[in-house]
């Protein structure tokens, strides 16, 4: 396994992003991204769990028999999630009320178990924790983007109620993008989540296709003379 | 007579008026005749003449091979100038074995089998034998050897002979003209066929758009008071000429899938086949010419022509003064099920009922659009299929899925593609899929065969190796035994010396 931190970061943020590339964790994704603030909260909670679980799984990786690794990972994750839930209930009660049910559901977030299984259980402690962090940030990034788009279109605001979550000093984040907006309710509803996610995925594919196109063009350039030779040969 | 409805079907623009009024003409002999050995369904015929042979009209050029095949006879007298591969009358334009013959212009008959004076007095088998010897095949286009169909008598309990005179393809009028001009002979042929099959009655099914032919046949029947021939006027609807649908219209019975109409007691013969059979039975003449409709908007002169088998299509077109404009498509057969002609150098064969030169306003070539699921094809399909769905599967190469929903029950009549508002070439999709499936089967068969061969070879190698080892072991044993014997001898010698 590589401990190329740059690579880990770029993988997690873009090319192997939990949402945009692996298409995991769609349940919390679609459910809580009605606003950017919710997305941010959910994303950070998940990041905390990812970092901690990566750390612990990596530390214990030599002790855990392969036969029981999945129950063991689940146990670790479940305990971490319970801790996070308690922490949020205690210190970020308002956000806790909004996210509610979805905090315990982080346990079943397949991205976390997936990272534990595919990465943390195979590498040293530091890269595992770093990967957890970057994956979490990648997930947060996706949640915030999705939440922001849905929020802007559905309500015309951005990061509404951010102060509830981050404290009053962050109230500058709360922007009303389109004043006197009538609202486009559909985007706040679950179908809106699917629609925006679909469009974002399409957008990513277009971007990826564009960045890989020059290589293809070169390849074509190389094969062309060969084809000509054959024609001449005939 | 009570008719039964068939489902689906279409009413294409008939365009029969282009040639329906033209009496049958004979075409002068061309300078060369090219006679393919594969003019029928089944195994190609085997040549019995050689290059340079002088042949007489009606002489056998190639004989049938195997149970499903048909003999081929010389259309005129002349010299065999070549036997080899030549462009076949087939859409692919690939070559097939062909006999090339140069007519000597004398048109001399050779020795023909003796006419059967009273066909109704002889055993049906005698007639079947004569039909087989005369190389007669189904002349409606399917070209199935007729003698094989006559043999169905021994396999199935037959009740009815249906004469297919529907001629439902647009443009084509060759059967119509034959029934009008040679009605006596046609009826006679039908009665001979009825006798040969041993059935009670024959029903002639004519589409309502041929009233003259209908009247002509009726007149013959009533004049002679034939009780065994019924004439039925079937609705004008394509594809009425499809054997199974014609039988359903007349009897109300559907032929079970993957079965023959004979399984429900009905045998269908084309009306032109009946005429050919009569010629063979009454006069001993083999099938060496047929009536062909030349039509289409791009032809200068249209008409119906009696053409010797093997006549190059270009000769026929020239005889009709050529084209008045560049044809968009040149077809052998009708516009619905006919095949494009790869080259006008190919010839008229036993199954060619028409040569059509269509101009662009007759064959609108249009852009294929996506399917909008309008289901016109579903209501047009006479076989109860869902063509748009089948084509969708085939487009995605899901051939098995297409078979599952009935691809192999498709008769390729083209009704679906005719109605399709998106101009999707549905029939070509189906032909492609059917062909590809056959190719896959062939490949699989070959793979199994080669696997068997490999196994066989490995066993042989193993055997050889074992045999070699055994031989070596034997040799070694022998050597050792010899050594031992020698040593023994030596010892014995020494002992004797010592003693």
């Amino acid at each position, binding site marked *: 396994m590589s401990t190329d931190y740059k690579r880990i970061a770029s993988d997690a943020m873009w090319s192997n992003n939990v949402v945009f590339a692996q298409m995991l964790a769609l349940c919390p994704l679609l459910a809580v991204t009605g606003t950017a603030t919710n997305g941010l909260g959910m994303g950070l909670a998940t990041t905390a769990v990812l970092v901690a679980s990566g750390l612990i799984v990596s530390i214990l990786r030599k002790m855990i028999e392969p036969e029981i690794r999945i129950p063991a990972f689940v146990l670790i994750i479940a305990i971490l999630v319970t801790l996070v839930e308690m922490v949020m209930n205690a210190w970020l009660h308002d956000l806790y009320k909004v996210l509610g049910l979805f905090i315990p559901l982080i346990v079943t977030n397949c991205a976390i178990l997936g990272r534990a299984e595919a990465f943390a259980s195979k590498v040293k402690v530091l890269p595992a924790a770093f990967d957890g962090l970057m994956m979490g940030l990648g997930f947060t990034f996706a949640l915030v983007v999705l939440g922001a788009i849905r929020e802007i279109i559905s309500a015309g605001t951005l990061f509404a109620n951010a102060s509830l979550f981050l404290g009053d000093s962050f109230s500058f984040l709360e922007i009303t993008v389109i004043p006197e907006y009538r609202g486009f309710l559909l985007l706040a509803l679950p179908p809106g989540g699917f629609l925006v996610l679909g469009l974002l995925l399409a957008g990513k594919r277009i971007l990826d296709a564009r960045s890989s196109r020059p290589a293809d063009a070169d390849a074509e350039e190389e094969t062309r003379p060969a084809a000509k030779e054959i024609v001449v040969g005939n | 007579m009570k008719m039964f409805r068939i489902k689906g079907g279409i009413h294409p623009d008939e365009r029969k008026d282009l040639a329906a009024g033209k009496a049958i003409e004979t075409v002068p002999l061309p300078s060369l005749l090219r006679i393919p050995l594969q003019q029928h369904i089944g195994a190609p015929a085997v040549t019995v003449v050689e290059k340079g042979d002088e042949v007489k009209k009606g002489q056998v050029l190639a004989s049938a091979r195997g149970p499903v095949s048909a003999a081929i006879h010389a259309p005129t007298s002349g010299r065999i100038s070549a036997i080899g591969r030549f462009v076949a009358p087939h859409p692919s334009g690939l070559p*097939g074995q062909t006999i090339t013959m140069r007519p000597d212009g004398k048109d001399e008959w050779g020795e023909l089998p003796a006419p059967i004076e009273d066909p109704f007095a002889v055993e049906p088998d005698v007639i079947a034998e004569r039909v087989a010897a005369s190389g007669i095949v189904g002349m409606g286009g399917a070209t199935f050897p007729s003698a094989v169909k006559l043999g169905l008598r021994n396999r199935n309990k037959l009740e009815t002979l249906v004469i297919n005179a529907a001629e439902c393809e647009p443009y084509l009028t060759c059967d119509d003209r034959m029934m009008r001009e040679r009605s006596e002979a046609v009826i006679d042929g039908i009665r001979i066929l009825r006798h040969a099959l041993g059935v009670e009655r024959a029903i002639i099914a004519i589409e309502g758009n041929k009233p003259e032919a209908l009247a002509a046949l009726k007149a013959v029947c009533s004049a002679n008071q034939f009780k065994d021939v019924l004439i039925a006027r079937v609705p004008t609807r394509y594809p009425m000429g499809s054997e199974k649908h014609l039988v359903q219209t007349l009897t109300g019975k559907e032929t079970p899938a993957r079965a023959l109409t004979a399984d429900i007691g009905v045998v269908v013969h084309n009306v032109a086949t009946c005429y050919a059979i009569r010629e063979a039975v009454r006069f001993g003449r083999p099938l060496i010419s047929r009536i062909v409709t030349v039509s289409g908007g791009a032809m200068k002169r249209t008409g119906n022509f009696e053409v010797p088998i093997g006549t190059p299509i270009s000769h026929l077109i020239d005889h009709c003064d050529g084209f008045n404009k560049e044809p968009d498509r040149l077809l052998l057969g009708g516009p619905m099920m006919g095949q494009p002609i790869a080259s006008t150098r190919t010839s008229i064969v036993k199954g060619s009922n028409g040569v059509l030169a269509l101009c662009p306003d007759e064959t609108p070539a249009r852009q*294929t659009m996506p399917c909008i699921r309008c289901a016109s094809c579903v209501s047009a399909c006479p076989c109860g299929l869902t063509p748009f769905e089948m084509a969708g599967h*085939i487009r995605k190469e899901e051939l098995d899925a297409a078979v599952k929903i009935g691809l192999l029950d498709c008769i390729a009549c083209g009704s679906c593609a005719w109605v399709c508002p998106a101009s999707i070439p549905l029939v*070509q*999709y189906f032909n492609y899929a*059917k062909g590809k499936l056959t*190719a896959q089967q062939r*490949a699989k068969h070959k793979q199994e065969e080669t696997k068997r061969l*490999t196994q066989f070879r490995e066993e042989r190698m193993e055997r050889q190796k074992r045999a070699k080892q055994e031989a070596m072991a034997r040799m070694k044993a022998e050597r050792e035994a010899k050594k031992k014997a020698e040593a023994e001898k030596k010892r014995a010698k020494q002992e004797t010396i010592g003693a």
Partner: protein
Amino acid sequence: MIEAMAVLFGLGGALGGGLGLAAYYLRVEGNPIAEEIEGLLPGTNCGQCGYLGCSAAAEGLAKGEIGVAMCPPGGKTLASQLADKLGVEADLSGMKDKGPVTAFIFEDLCTGCTKCLKRCPTDAIVGASRQMHGVVDDACTGCEVCEEVCPTGAITMRPVTDTLMTWHWPKPDTGLAA
């Protein structure tokens, strides 16, 4: 506190025991898919894939040691079949499909050395020592083994061309419905 620990310990013991038993009794050996794959391969053991025979190649495929585009006699068709069976996405666009080929022997170059004859896995080459050899098209799989062993370069692979018997309509142009 004590209760939480007790519950977790209890659950751990019971479920862990169950898992241990499962790991012991439900062990899976062998690979059933290899046999299915072998059924798809040509079965001529020509060895062009690098394995000793088709059965070994099937094992290799099942283990994922080799890509699906490994069998020249099978061509693109086989590769896509294998990809289906193995449930992998294979990019076959780069794989040039020569289509089926069969061996052809140039008469004037053949010395009758019987080298090809001995190597042909399907006995598709006929002939005898010092006599011109010929290929039985129906038995030839186009595995190219003979081409490799021929000392005079008298054997070449020719694409199988359509005949009236094998030709079928090409797939129509999909038009705008792409």
